[in-house]
């Protein structure tokens, strides 16, 4: 899936998400730098590994996100806590 990642050093990368792990380290293929491409430092890179700790935001395509499913899942995660608080 095509995503954009905004990093904590203000760089924005776009590419296809190849894999992700529990730390949200990500591998992207066909990467390009959105941040005005005035960063030749990343010139020769096509496939990158991005460490989870440097990511500020991950931008997903709007159509790919099932917001209702997410809301339901979050609600269910929080529900057991509420019951135990009441008792």
């Amino acid at each position, binding site marked *: 899936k095509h995503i954009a990642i905004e*990093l*904590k*050093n*203000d*760089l924005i*990368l776009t590419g296809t998400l190849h*894999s*992700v*792990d529990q730390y949200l*380290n*990500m*591998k992207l293929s066909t*990467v390009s730098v959105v941040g005005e491409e*005035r*960063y*030749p*430092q*990343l*010139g*020769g*890179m*096509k*496939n*990158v*590994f*991005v*460490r989870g*700790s*440097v990511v500020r935001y991950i931008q997903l395509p709007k159509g790919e996100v099932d917001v209702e499913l997410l809301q339901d899942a979050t609600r269910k995660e929080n529900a057991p806590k509420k019951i135990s608080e009441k008792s």
Partner: protein
Amino acid sequence: MASTLEELIGKKVSVICGDGRCLIGTLKGYDQVQNIVLSETHERAFSLDSPVELIDLGLYIVRGDNLAIIGELDEEEDAKVDLGSVRAEPLKPVMHTAL
């Protein structure tokens, strides 16, 4: 889906560090916390006023905490770039707390 550096082993990689430095070397090894070992490393120091400075470093170990990005360097694409004429702002360091 495991995200490891396995495929990059033995390849020439470009590493962006947490302080904004750009290192280029051959990935010799890594571990679960992304500590990496690079051989034949050199740093490319970019600046707005002067040409890219190449600093030879040899065998380097970069601690995973200080790692931001590792990418496979496409040598063909990289060869097209004339480093002598590149003027660029150095990359910003990674800020874990925004001000």
